[in-house]
């Protein structure tokens, strides 16, 4: 493949900076390809709520008569005129959003937001670690899977010659460690912030540090080093930090808010971002989770304000972006003895974006009557999370190898989330 390739349209600075480095490196950058297809194309942002978010108090089934009985002190009141924000925000007369999700309500109103309820893993595990593992590996109850489903998408979605560029920023996790979902054969970048993504000191020092990792060893340390130096140079040239929040977007000054702001900067700087990942913890509300206010409400404030800022900031670009939120499982339908909720089963997700057919709650509602609960205690599952992952990656990113992404799984039904 000798077609001229460039990481950037204006890569003169890179060419100069890389003179004197290894020929192989030069081959990969100066003769790099046109602006990557992915940069002009679609972006999927996966947001993981770690700790098992309480779906029943997030997308509130106030229309289910059992809901309030199961949660005498933590139920979210059903929407009533005059109650202001101290009640669920009505969606369709049956479901409502937790009032702390008010920043997301305009997205619903504009048809850009679709909750999916009673969705999750068919595995019966109530272990955070197993369930996160399954949601990220994409293989419920199979622990031996080495890679994550999103990495398998990257690894199987055609060759770079055909339709994408070898940009190091095709998949970025705003996390200190690579999340399980992105582990695997396809290269990905994990970083805590864009600001810190540079080698310090400059000049000869950087050149020689880079040379330390160019020795041909194929181990994990050398591999990470090589990828890193390449990525640093590219990012320096693209300078995503020049993009300030637009359209009045105000990100919360929290780790989650910061991470979403930087995902927006990466998207705007056209570095070829196709898949982004961020996570946010604090959802394991065993004790005093509160109702309209309290612990869960505070987490939802940060969650919703950050996502709302991201969608505002990206503006028209949201036409090409889908945000997908997820959590490893839901929580028990019945509140526990500590004003909290213990580990449950099915949960809820949000799909947000221009391509999303919003203003509708997806998924069949299984009901909260005692006989309808899973193992007599939890919201039952009616949609396998792989159905959602498969549908979104196929419709939005053009994934074709669903068999490789979700081995042994055939979606039984189609939600029609993205038309």
């Amino acid at each position: 493949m000798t077609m001229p390739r460039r990481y950037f349209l204006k890569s003169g600075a890179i060419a100069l900076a890389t003179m004197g480095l290894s020929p192989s490196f030069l081959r990969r950058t100066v003769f790099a390809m046109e602006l990557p297809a992915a940069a002009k194309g679609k972006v999927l942002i996966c947001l993981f709520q770690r700790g098992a978010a309480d779906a029943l108090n997030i997308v509130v089934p106030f229309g289910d008569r059992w809901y309030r009985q199961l949660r005498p002190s933590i139920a979210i009141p059903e929407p009533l005129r005059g109650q202001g924000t101290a009640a669920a925000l009505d969606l369709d007369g049956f479901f409502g959003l937790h009032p702390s999700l008010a920043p997301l309500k305009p997205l619903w109103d504009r048809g850009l937001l679709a909750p999916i309820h009673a969705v999750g893993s068919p595995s019966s595990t109530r272990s955070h670690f197993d369930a996160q593992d399954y949601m990220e590996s994409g293989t419920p109850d199979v622990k031996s899977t080495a890679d994550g489903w999103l990495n398998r998408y990257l690894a199987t979605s055609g060759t770079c010659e055909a339709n994408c560029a070898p940009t190091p920023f095709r998949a970025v996790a705003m996390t200190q460690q690579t999340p399980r979902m992105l582990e695997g054969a396809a290269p990905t970048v994990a970083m805590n912030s864009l600001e810190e993504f540079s080698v310090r000191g400059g000049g000869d020092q950087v050149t020689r540090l880079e040379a330390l990792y160019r020795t041909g060893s194929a181990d994990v340390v050398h591999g990470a080093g090589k990828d890193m130096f390449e990525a640093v140079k590219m990012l320096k040239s693209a300078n995503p930090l020049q993009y300030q929040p637009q359209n009045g977007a105000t990100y919360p000054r929290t780790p989650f808010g910061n991470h979403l702001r930087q995902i927006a900067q990466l998207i705007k700087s056209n570095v070829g971002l196709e898949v982004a990942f961020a996570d946010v913890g604090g959802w394991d509300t065993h004790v005093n989770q509160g109702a309209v206010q309290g612990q869960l409400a505070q987490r939802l404030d940060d969650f919703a304000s950050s996502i709302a800022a991201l969608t505002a900031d990206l503006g028209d670009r949201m036409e090409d972006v889908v945000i997908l939120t997820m959590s490893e499982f839901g929580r028990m339908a019945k509140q526990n003895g500590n004003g909290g909720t213990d580990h449950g089963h099915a949960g809820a997700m949000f799909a947000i974006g221009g391509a999303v057919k919003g203003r509708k709650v997806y998924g069949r509602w299984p009901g909260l009557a005692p006989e309808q609960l899973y193992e007599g205690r939890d919201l039952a599952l009616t949609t396998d999370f792989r159905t959602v992952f498969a549908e979104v990656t196929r419709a939005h990113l053009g994934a074709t190898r669903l068999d490789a992404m979700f081995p042994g799984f055939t979606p039984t039904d189609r939600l029609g989330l993205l038309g």
Partner: protein
Amino acid sequence: MHRTDRRTQTIVLTVLLLAGCSRAAAPSLTSTPASAPADAAFRELTADQQVAQALSRLTFGARPGEAQRVRAMGVDQWIDLQLHPERIADPSAESFFAAYEVYHSTPAELDERHPRPQTVLNQLGKAGNRANRSAADSARLRELAQGQRRMISELQGGRVARALVSERELQEVMTDFWLNHFNVYLQKGPPEHYLLAQYENDVIRPNALGKFRTLLGAVAKSPAMLFYLDNWESQADSNRPRLNAQGRVAGNMTPQQAQRALERRLREGQPLPPGVTPQNVQQLVANQRRRGLNENYGRELLELHTLGVDGGYTQADVIAAARALTGWTIKRPPVGAFTFNPQMHDAGEKVLLGHTLRAGRGIEDGEEVLDIVARHPSTARYIATKLARRFVSDTPPGALVERAAATFTRTDGDIREVVRTIVTSPEFFARAAYRAKVKSPFEVVVSALRALGASPDTSPRTAALVALLGQPIYGHMAPNGWPETGDQWMNTGAILNRINFGIAVAANRVPGASALTWPGAEALRDAPLDQQVDGVVRALLGGEASPETRAILTSGENPFAQTARDTNVEPSAAMTPPPPPGLPGGTPPDPAAAAQRLLQRLPLLKGLPQIVGLAIGSPEFQRR
């Protein structure tokens, strides 16, 4: 059989040849003990490499002169000594930590001396609003916030400092191992940071090489774990029989009836049952209201602390364990001591892993749960695997794990003997295990500082660097602890931070360490470049670097006679003041982002500091 024999012969021959070669090459290595165990015959590593291997795994990295000392003592004798920390005097650690308040106070004392600003704000009520706060109150609140930061700084910085100065090096490695195995989280909620020093010093460290059952019991009764995994609040479900204050099964009264009866007695001035006083009756009543089983600790006990996730238990076992452990709580929460409260205990019959725990018992229910799980074969395997992964490689040989698990079972969970099985094994001294482990961020920072003979730091800066590299101390939220394998630590962002950390160390940005004045630097400062590189490779890379790395370390311009004057290394005083660490209970802080300031505006290094910086940033240094 034939094949096995031939293979054994080949190995023996290879080892003899290797040993012969290394003796010929380095005559000083003949100090390998004559009384080495029979296994030593199967050690693939040279004598020098054995020393390097032992130091890289049983300590947080060799300090100046340690390799020579271990060689002189004999690597096996040294390992044996490290397995017995009680035989090692540790005066420098003792004197250093004399000034650490958290190590010399109970949680209750800490709470009394350093109440949380929020508590005082609550007491102030409206007078506490920012607008109408008095100057005295503002000053008091600032002082309290400082007190919180100092406590956290001592907790986090103390871990780094002890890893630097303690002579009980293996004990520190094992303390780190168990603190990760029995993970607790600084930001769990307000009381947790008052409880951590006690957890580390009284629960984990003294038992780090002791009996597993003793350690498990100490953890189960530690306020830090009781609070972290919510067991202190877990009570019998309302449909279960409970015990009265005398420890007998209470009558047929429902909890609600019992509560009303208690309140009536109090109102009417009738004598209260033993254990109930007018002072604690409100608390007991509150306990009655806040009733219900919490499975959190019961689940993690089985999944993470003992049997392991594939250890063969069911959801029913989780519930049985949680029920048996109801009533294991904190006296005068949240900063009091462990207590068993019979009135919270589920006195019904339970079946755990096929063992029936009969009805009507109290604290012995939980003790028996711990007995059962500590002695379960899955636990032996699970702990043996984790230890072998820590000491040998990410994928430890199955035969070694089997032997370590057998030792666990044979010795009734004697951790010292399980570790001994692992660190004296042929697998430990095999080529495949040499430099097979990727260092965790804590290990990167501490091993660099140890190699440079750094003095311990009393500021929060070094701990902030560990956080920046991705491993905030006491900062892992989920109970599974930090990753144990290299692939999880290595990615582009991680390696970038590690490389920048190396530059920061070499630029004297890290308190206590200097790239120009470390032991050995004096002799190297004016030496030819070759010798400087040799000295740095010896100090930081265990004496071995790949030809490529050595070539790059030696490739710098301006090779001779770098002195402090003509390097542009900034003095430590120029270091940006560290950001305050986050306070527990509020919005989760971003310690990594905050600590980033420590690495800003790092200089271009020259001379010896550049060699040091490159060496710390090299692939070799990322491994142990």
